[in-house]
């Protein structure tokens, strides 16, 4: 897989399809870090591991690069979906970005509880089957079953928040300026933890139809809050009710913005996971 990615990267640079390739480099002394490759020889040092999400970095690289600069990005499934969402939201110019899609391993897929551990445009590696995160026991404890008990669990976990803003900073889709989380009306300044509703739920809901479940937020959380699980129910609702998954189809708009008339008909029973934290309506 690695050799193939290197070949593609080299040909993209050689044929001037891309002015740079964003990926990981293993430098002297085995130091691994993100890097914009812009010459063929450097590509020898390209590596694919560890999982290191590059979509947001790609956006900032494009923003500060000269007009017409075209960037290729080595993407996993989630990174590709994030770039698609950013393109849909006019944060990235479509014709300035290329991807080299790689498949994740089985092992990585199960660490991430990923439904689609491969990009739509797969260039290297074999796609492995995804998994249903709702089958994971730890996730189920957070998302399914007794509401008050789960509420207690979530409140307990979110109380750890040290307000580093890492979840927001690392999220490829969190690009609003100004950010609501910097608005004193919503988020009290100068104290920790950040409030459950006004910080964490504003953030979660803002991402309800854009979250690609890449896990960047959770990876960046110093206090191990299961932030991906916070998004899963909303992602699942969109998938089941509207057949919509963020980042899959560049042409398909979010149903929250455009398909309101397709609301479930009155009287239609919502699946129980929609009512994630409140009291269960037993009727």
């Amino acid at each position: 897989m690695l050799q193939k990615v290197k070949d593609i990267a080299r040909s993209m640079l050689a044929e001037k399809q891309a002015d740079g390739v964003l990926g990981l480099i293993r430098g002297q002394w085995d130091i691994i870090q993100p890097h914009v490759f812009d010459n063929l020889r450097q590509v020898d040092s390209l590596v694919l591991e560890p999982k290191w999400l590059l979509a947001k970095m790609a956006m900032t690289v494009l923003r500060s690069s000269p007009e017409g600069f075209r960037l290729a990005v080595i993407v996993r499934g989630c990174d590709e979906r994030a770039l698609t969402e950013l393109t849909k939201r006019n944060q990235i110019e479509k014709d300035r970005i290329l991807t080299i899609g790689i498949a994740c391993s089985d092992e990585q897929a199960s660490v991430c509880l990923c439904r689609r551990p491969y990009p739509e445009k797969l260039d290297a590696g074999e796609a492995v089957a995804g998994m249903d995160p709702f089958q994971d026991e730890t996730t189920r404890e957070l998302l399914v079953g007794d509401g008050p008990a789960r509420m207690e669990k979530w409140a307990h976990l979110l109380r750890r928040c040290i307000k580093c803003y890492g979840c927001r900073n690392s999220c490829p889709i969190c690009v609003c300026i100004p950010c609501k989380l910097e608005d004193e009306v919503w988020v009290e300044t100068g104290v920790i933890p950040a409030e459950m509703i006004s910080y964490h739920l504003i953030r979660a809901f803002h991402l309800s139809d854009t979250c690609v479940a890449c896990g960047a937020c959770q990876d960046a959380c110093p206090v191990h809050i299961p932030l991906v699980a916070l998004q899963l129910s909303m992602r699942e609702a969109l998938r089941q009710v509207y057949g919509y998954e963020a980042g899959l189809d560049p042409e398909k708009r979010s149903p929250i913005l455009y398909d309101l008339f397709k609301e479930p008909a009155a009287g239609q029973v919502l699946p129980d996971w929609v009512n994630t934290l409140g009291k269960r309506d037993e009727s």
Partner: protein
Amino acid sequence: MNPEFIKTICPYCGTGCGLILKVEKEKVAGIYPDREHPVSQGTLCIKGWFAHEFVHHPDRLRTPLVRKGDRFEAISWDEAILLAAEKLEATAETYGEDAIGGLCSAKCTNEENYLFQKLIRMAFGTNNVDHCARLCHAPTAAGMAQTTGSGAMTNSISDLAGAECILIIGSNAAESHPIIMGEIYKAVDKGATVIVIDPRKTAVAQNASMHLPINPGTDIPLLVGMMRHILDAGLHNAAFIQERMEGFEGLRNFLQSWPVERAAEECGIDEGRIRNVAEIYAKAKDAAIVYCMGITQHACGTANVHAVCDLAMLCGKIGREFSGVYPLRGQNNVQGSCDMGGLPNVYPGYQSVADPSIQEKFQMAWGRELSARPGLTVTEMIASAGKDIRALYIMAENPALSDPDVNHVLESLAKLDFLIVQDIFLTETAKFAHLVLPATCFAEKTGTYTNTERRFQLLRQAVEPPGEAKGDFEIICLLANALGLDFPYSHPGEVMDEIASLVPAYGGVRFDRLERAGLQWPCPDAHHPGTRFLHEHKFTRGKGLFVVPQYTPPFEKPDGEYPHYLNTGRMFAHYHTGTMTRRSPFLNRELEGAYAEIHPEDAQRAGIREGDRIRLTSRRGSIVTAARISQRVLRGSIFAPFHFAEARANILTNPVLDPVSKIPEFKVCAVKMEKEPHEDEE
């Protein structure tokens, strides 16, 4: 043209997290966490995420400045170095060499600190070199050196995740060492019990299994109460004590005078809870004790550290993975600045200046006669400024905010014949200087920092200094050469090689070995992999030593005139004297000004509401700050962060010193509180 990504180390706390600086057009344009970093593993706290924001601030010093009356004038480097050398030499000639003092810096690299102390010791034959470690973990260095032989954190940060019980004493890690707090939560997620001992209901305490809100300054009664119960219940580790310890009889006799009932009465915690907590700690397979300024910043700070060590050694919970004693170091390189001999009684590697064979070794290496007499501490140097100390050279320290009884500090600084301040901004201290030397920040230098787990880590230069500013490394070399010494160094790596040749414990540390993940000392030779935890088969001093922790209550207690306890410390968005964080727009947005936390009942009694201006007064001075009404403080107690120049909490604090380590009692003093009229009502 493409952005470059440069790996380096965070300049704030002693955790030493990995940063990746994004450099564009010769500026640091952003920060990403380093997923490969052994400690932070892709996470950062709010300060780390925004550590680039002060780097290119317009307030950065760009040229040397000399005082002309009450203002500063720019001068050339040649003039500045010549002036510094002439004034220091003249002072030494007139008043003797001990009239010179130097404060090195826990913010600077190991190599810079090594060169700084070498300059002071070589050029002036004095040991008057110290720094702000005096104000944070001097009791740890002194206390743990006595009990174990090494004044450093025994284990690695990652060991915390494997502990079954974690006792956190006087540390608000969630705000002050957030990434270490994350390691503690890993243990919690595996079922560990976290017990917090703190007079404040801190963020750590709120999330703990148990919180024991002791009376301020009563750590020793609580800890000896626990030890007494452990002994009475036979829960101590007799085999460990027999095989590896000495001094047990002395401790046992001492504990006879501390029945649990007496401990309970003194510290204000129910007897049953003390017994319960003691049993949880003693029975846990692996148990860690994490502590910070709540233990050290007392007039009995060293004894507090003895008590912590005694407890760990009594239960044999030291010298093993996942157990141990974890003093969390505050500054990014406070471990290193101590390791490098930035202390008045030791050369690099804690080698005593009073030991003739050590003196001989350094005289041979440096080629100058050196003094065998320990020098003055920072608190002593400031106190004798204008008397015994006539000229001070301060590198990146800000005593005008950080030292106790600040009004007195300011008077002292003003009395100096000559003050050199080398820094990146015109700090409150630099405003008193006769000569200001513009230096570089973390993003502009190469060198090493040593984090709280003894890990040497490489700092990589990402951008050029602003204006004519020079690296501290280069400035020290220029000054040394002007003073007639030979400092021929062109790269910090050469200095590290010299350090390795003089300190056995760092013998195997070389720059190229630090590139990937750093090295934890001791690392005696080129093939040694570094040391994850200390004291495995024997203590650094041979046998572990039980030292009787003599209890001294806080010097000041609330009385009729000053009815409240005052506690000082840090809050999550700012760092120490705010020189960097208060110039960071994002951090300043989080908190712009000073405040003090007051218990709701105290506020109500005084007619104070949220946000009201209040005046806090101690026997030493008074400040005006904003009231924040909070359940986090106990009734009768007030908490004030010390970051703010406009309301310096250290105007209030008590300069009474711990007799051993000379640390002031920052954590406890008595104050009164009054409501101030609104500014527009005055």
